[in-house]
């Protein structure tokens, strides 16, 4: 390796700032990864990989821009690459989904985190992702669109479908015949 100023870095000062941003984002990054993967160990591996990748690519981050969106993007890209390679992580299985559903309606006022977590894993990854970003992490439509690299309209429809599917998995189908859009809007409004 050459001993001249590292072209892959941001200089000692910039690197230090970048490092501090990494530290700060760890909890949120872990939470996002947990929602995507379901499994704690796999999620933490994924989050660490994302951090290592972010560090290696730090020169491509523009200081002052949205760091969370930038590193979440790295994480989700890594997740989808892994998902494609790894058949064990295949998510959408209608039969499994049906089984969760048969488990019966839960109490309406309170839902176990573990139930939601399990149900999330039955959803298509893209719906799961948008539910985690907006419903759990509390990012805006705009930021979610940036992270997922798609239009805001796509985010909204994925959120609505995801919210409806989650509701169907947990409570059974058409519990209150609520429009998915309304429910999705509430996910946002409650933050």
């Amino acid at each position, binding site marked *: 390796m050459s*001993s001249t*100023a*590292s072209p892959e*870095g941001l200089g*000692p000062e910039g*690197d*230090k700032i970048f*490092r501090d941003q*990494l*530290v700060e984002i*760890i*909890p*949120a990054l*872990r*939470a996002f990864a*947990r*929602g995507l993967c379901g499994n704690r160990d796999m999620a*933490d591996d994924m*989050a*660490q990989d994302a*951090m*290592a990748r972010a*560090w290696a690519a730090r020169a491509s981050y523009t200081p002052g821009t949205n760091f969370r969106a930038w590193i979440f993007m790295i994480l989700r890209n890594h997740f989808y690459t892994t998902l494609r390679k790894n058949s064990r992580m295949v998510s959408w299985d209608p039969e499994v989904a049906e089984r969760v559903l048969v488990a019966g309606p839960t109490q*309406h*006022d*309170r*839902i*176990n*985190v573990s*139930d*939601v*977590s399990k149900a*999330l894993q039955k959803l298509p990854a893209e719906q799961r992702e948008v*539910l*985690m970003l907006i*419903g*759990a*992490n*509390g990012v805006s439509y705009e930021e979610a669109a940036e992270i997922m690299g798609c239009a805001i309209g796509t985010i909204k*429809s994925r959120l609505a479908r995801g*919210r409806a599917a*989650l*509701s169907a998995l*947990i409570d059974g189908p058409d519990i209150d015949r609520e429009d998915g859009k309304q*429910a999705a*809007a*509430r*996910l*946002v*409004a*409650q*933050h």
Partner: protein
Amino acid sequence: MNKQKSEENPPKPLRNRAMKSQNNDPIAAALRQLHDDVVSEPVPDDFMRLLSEIDRKIGQEKNGA
């Protein structure tokens, strides 16, 4: 299927905020709880190891400059 997109939204009464207290969405609450649970966990040692590796590199960079 869903062709009605843009023009179909009736003017909404204020915000959805009123729903917040009245209509507490249990799924929204559970999603947030899922997030909060992870966030409140102590950060595993592996992450700290990664950070000290980064710190080491920053240190080298400083000394080598």
